[in-house]
């Protein structure tokens, strides 16, 4: 479903990703782990279409289409979603209005009838229960005054309402206490299906204990230096990253 081939990305002339190869098939959940500064967030943002990153080589194919040629909104409409590591605070923009606009853009793209205010409220309240968000949330501005945990649950909520086929979660677990990690993981697990693919980027093994990845990759210095099953995550937790030697890149 998502094929990343020989992806090279620079920021302000500085190479960050140096030849990423990765395929996520429908139904699979891949975890990407790696130390700070290895390029994890760059990978997530490039998939979502942030234009401050310059793709110098390689391609990203989603369902046979060249993702790199699409605007961020076209990617979203095609079914690609990224959960932000640092969700943006937007004072004055009401969350209900924003989500309704987004959901209806998606429905319009799919040729479905747009939801009116009442149907949308019914729909969103059901999703909010899944991530245990209070109804008062609906009257707030986007991420404005949200705690760290609320911001991350808000990201998962957006995934649940937009129903993407490919979800990239960028450190959705960081900064959360154990209860919040469990809520986020439950939200994610309920959403998994044979039709959907996931790329879960994380610094810690902790969340992987709840979501059971099919594959684990280690990203270091812009390259995937090791890939394996979920046991690799446990090994990393125990030994850290330093035992992996980056001079031996492997093709995933």
């Amino acid at each position, binding site marked *: 479903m998502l094929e990343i081939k020989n992806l090279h990305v620079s920021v302000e002339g500085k190479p960050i990703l140096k030849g990423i190869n990765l395929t996520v098939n429908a139904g699979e959940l891949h975890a990407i782990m790696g130390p700070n500064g290895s390029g994890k967030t760059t990978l997530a943002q490039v998939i979502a279409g942030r234009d401050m990153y310059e793709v110098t080589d390689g391609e990203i194919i989603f369902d046979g289409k060249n993702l790199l040629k699409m605007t961020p*909104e076209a990617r979203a409409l095609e079914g690609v979603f*990224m959960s932000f590591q640092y969700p943006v605070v937007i004072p004055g923009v009401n969350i209900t*209005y*924003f989500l309704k606009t987004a959901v209806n853009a998606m429905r319009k793209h799919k040729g479905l009838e747009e939801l009116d205010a009442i149907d949308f409220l019914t729909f969103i309240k059901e999703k909010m229960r899944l991530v245990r968000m209070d109804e008062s949330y609906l009257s707030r501005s986007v991420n404005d005054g949200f705690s760290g945990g609320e911001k991350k649950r808000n990201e998962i909520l957006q995934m649940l309402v937009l129903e993407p086929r490919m979800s990239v979660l960028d450190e959705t677990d960081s900064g959360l206490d154990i209860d919040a990690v469990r809520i986020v993981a439950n939200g994610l697990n309920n959403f998994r299906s044979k039709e959907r693919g996931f790329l879960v980027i994380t610094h810690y093994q902790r969340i992987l204990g709840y979501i059971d990845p099919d594959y684990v990759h280690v990203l270091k210095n812009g390259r995937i230096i090791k890939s394996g099953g979920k046991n690799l995550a446990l090994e990393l937790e125990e030994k850290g990253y330093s035992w992996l030697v980056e001079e031996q890149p492997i093709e995933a």
Partner: protein
Amino acid sequence: MLKIVKQYADEFRNLDNGHFSTEPVAIQNIRISAMERFTELGFPNNKLEEWKNTNLDGLTKTLFKLPSGKQTQITPETIVPFSIEGTHRLVILNGKYLPELSNLDNLLTTIEIKNFSEALTDDSSLLAPYLGKIADYTNHPFVALNTAFMDDGIFIHVPDNQIIENPIHLLYISSPTDENTVFHLRNMIIVGVNSEITIIEDYVGLDNKKYFTNVVTEMAVKENGTIHHIKIQQESARAHHISTLQVHLDSASSVSLDSFIVGSSMTRNDISAILNGEGADCKMNGLVLAKDSQHIDNHTILDHAMPHGTSSELFKGIYTGKAHGIFNGRIIVRKNAQKTDARQTNKNLLLSDSALVNSNPQLEIYADDVKCTHGSTTGQLEEEALFYLRSRGLDIRTAQALLLHGFADQILNKISNLAIKAYLQSILSNWLSGIKT
């Protein structure tokens, strides 16, 4: 003396020998001394600190004439787009009160309300103690010019212990028969002990005429009284708008002053509040929407003269095209005004490379036990926020519109009256849909 100043002085002399001579002597004397003061002061120029960023060539190179007396014909349909549900409306067309399009209902049973020129000739004992005392004509040339020529507008006096539920909508419509007409409008609003009122001052230009509105509004609120004052400036695109709004607050009184500025080619807005009694509270909010080569200058003063006063000010602006904005916000905390809490924020969005804002917060604090904060930011729409919205499937125009609405809504949301808020929302939506982003 500048030729133009002399022309105004000559015009004044002609009126003083005729039109004004029917007024009480005290009023005539105020006019004469205001005209004297204006001839001494002349028009402000860029050498004055308070005027350094505002070019007045548009006003000093053209003589604006008083209304000709010929009145434009308008029908009730004309004002339909400017009606706000649940309000009493008073229409002032080209500087003259128009009773047939106004609706006071039962207001006159509880408060005193009349058009200003009538109040002047009646020499109301209520008007005299305040006229020219709140808005000082000795130091401000445009107040002096207004005071010399002051014509119509609205006088409102709310006696003690009266809560006026329905807002009063003062609708000033300008559609002069001749180009280069000046309207010296004058308002006075006096609110008694424990009383409360909501006033909307709404300036509307009907067509694309060039004219000059020079308005002075004096307000005073007594102990524990409340004024909600909402000023909407949607003048024609070629109009000049000079406005002076001054309010005196007695102890434990509360005033909110909200400004929405979208019209005119050039605006100078002076808003000042003096917290003259203990524990007074003043909220000042503003939203400027400026495009093309509009020049919008806001000067605000919050003057804390007594202890335990609170004030909060939030002024925002969206500027595009070659628009030029000025925000000059002064907070004064006098020696006696201990325990003052004053906050000021100015935020501006620039949507084009040629738009410009000068933001200048000024704090003058002479008391030692006070809390004062201020902050000012000017920038573009946040790229990160745009990306966030687009990554959820919103196209770039929708995302921009949502962010701009959000920016402006922080001001609109401060209006609790839903009908007024809806009226402002439609002005905002119209403006946003008319700009390129």
